[in-house]
């Protein structure tokens, strides 16, 4: 029964990810006085791409063809670790938050290799940029997550969220820092506006798009879907770690329904904030990204410090 719910939750994760992307696009269009596409446009795009014949360059090795499948499945595995509508699921008990970061690193490794595989200039450029950014973003993310895990004294996400939920409304200074750090990292890792622009193919500024420039057809669909999933994973992490109220603790139909409504509401709000930020902020120069991520790391460090200084029992 528990495994069934865990699998269902992961399927829900995969199914809802394009909807979140569509809602985000809708908010952005509304804020920029443009006519918004339908909320279900990302689904249609994915469907259209799966019907098209993928074109693969002659020089491409086997890696180029298999990479989309590896990336997509690694991202799904990462998603299965995270409590979406209920805590205490068997999948989240078997892998902790460090494994989740490991899955992301695994997917990114293959994406960077696929970018290099064809040998075009843009792919290599995108790969090198992506690795630069991720090498700076990963420590900051781990710092932010460790603040949570030190508070709950477990690296298991499900246990940590249950701990935050059970201790009620406690104002924790360290969580303020960790929240800001995680938001900054999430923006950098999912390639949103101040770091990368997801809606442009302007050659000199792109990072993620540069790596997947050679992909087409169902391969492109899988990679796009994986990046939408990654956006949703970060959104769920921020929403459920820092505002866990509403998540189901028992597996009754009513609690699960409330959990689903709560997470959809939280993600909807988060997407509104993200779209406002993306409309107000201009993309920054690539060479300033390290300052930005250094600041995120500093916030994570301060979160950990203030946990030790201000909160820990002694």
């Amino acid at each position, binding site marked *: 029964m528990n495994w069934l719910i865990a699998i269902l939750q992961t399927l829900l994760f995969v199914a809802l990810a394009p909807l979140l992307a569509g809602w985000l696009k809708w908010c952005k269009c509304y804020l920029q006085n443009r006519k918004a596409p339908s909320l279900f446009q990302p689904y249609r795009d994915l469907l259209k791409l799966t019907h098209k014949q993928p074109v693969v360059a002659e020089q491409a090795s086997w890696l180029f063809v298999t990479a989309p499948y590896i990336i997509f499945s690694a991202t799904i595995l990462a998603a299965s670790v995270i409590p979406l509508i209920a805590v205490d699921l068997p999948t989240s008990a078997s892998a902790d938050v460090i494994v989740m970061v490991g899955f992301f690193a695994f997917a990114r490794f293959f994406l960077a290799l696929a970018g290099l595989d064809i040998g075009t200039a843009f792919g290599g450029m995108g790969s090198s940029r992506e690795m630069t950014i991720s090498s700076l973003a990963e420590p900051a993310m781990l710092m932010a997550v460790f603040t949570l895990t030190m508070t709950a004294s477990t690296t298991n996400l499900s246990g940590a969220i249950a701990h935050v939920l059970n201790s009620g409304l406690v104002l924790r200074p360290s969580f303020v820092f960790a929240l800001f750090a995680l938001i900054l990292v999430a923006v950098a890792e999912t390639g949103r506006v101040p770091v990368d622009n997801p809606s442009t193919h302007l050659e000199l500024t792109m990072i993620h798009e540069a790596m997947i420039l050679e992909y087409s057809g169902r391969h492109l669909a899988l990679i796009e879907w994986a990046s939408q999933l990654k956006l949703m994973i970060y959104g769920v992490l921020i929403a459920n770690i820092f505002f866990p109220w509403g998540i189901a603790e028992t597996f009754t139909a009513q609690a699960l329904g409330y959990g689903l409504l709560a997470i959809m509401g939280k993600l909807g709000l988060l997407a509104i904030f993200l779209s406002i930020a993306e409309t107000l902020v201009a993309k920054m120069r690539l060479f300033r990204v390290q300052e930005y991520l250094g600041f995120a790391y500093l916030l994570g460090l*301060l979160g950990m*410090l203030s946990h030790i*200084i201000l*909160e*820990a029992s002694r």
Partner: protein
Amino acid sequence: MNIVQTDFYTQAILSMAALVGLTSFLMLGQSRLLRLIFVFALQGLLLTSTTALAAYSLDNPHLYISAVLTLVLKVIFIPWMLRREVLRMNMHRDIQTLSNKTMVMMGGASLMVFSYYVLHPIVQTTSPVMLNALAVSLSVVLLGMLLMITHRQAIAHVVGFMSIENGLFFAAIVATKGMPMVVELGVAFDVLVAAVLFGIFFFHIRTSIDSMDVDLLNKLHEVDK
């Protein structure tokens, strides 16, 4: 002490302490003067709300007067004066890059650890909340000094000085549960007088070297180094 066991007032004061520390770090990393002044006003606002919170929870009405004074002086008057100065000098478009931003930030983080380490012996004699608030305010003082060392503009120096005063004020509010009214009025007027004096100082520095960059003061040497 575990934070879950403390009352809501303590949690709120600790969160305020963390946010005040954060604003000090934000000030350290700013390269634009107008944004620096804005963050300084934000720190003043946090101080105001801390004072009001202390007044409400300790049932100490004269702290409300102190909160209003802080609001008027540190959130409205001094930032307004500094902002006017920046706009008049036409410096709001200048970006002053720090020579080594990451090193400065990491230095700031180690100052925070250091101030906690220095104050750690106090934990034997007093409540842990007071220790934490004191550690944060000491680090705000040290970060203000670091701000004065790393920035070259005279206005940034003034902001650093005022944020040192903010740190002391925060310690006074949290640790003593409200000083006597005479002391607080005295401190508030000291700040006011300091602001006016800085205005005069700006005027003189501008008329003599035609810039706000204090590194240019070296050029007053008769012999070029």
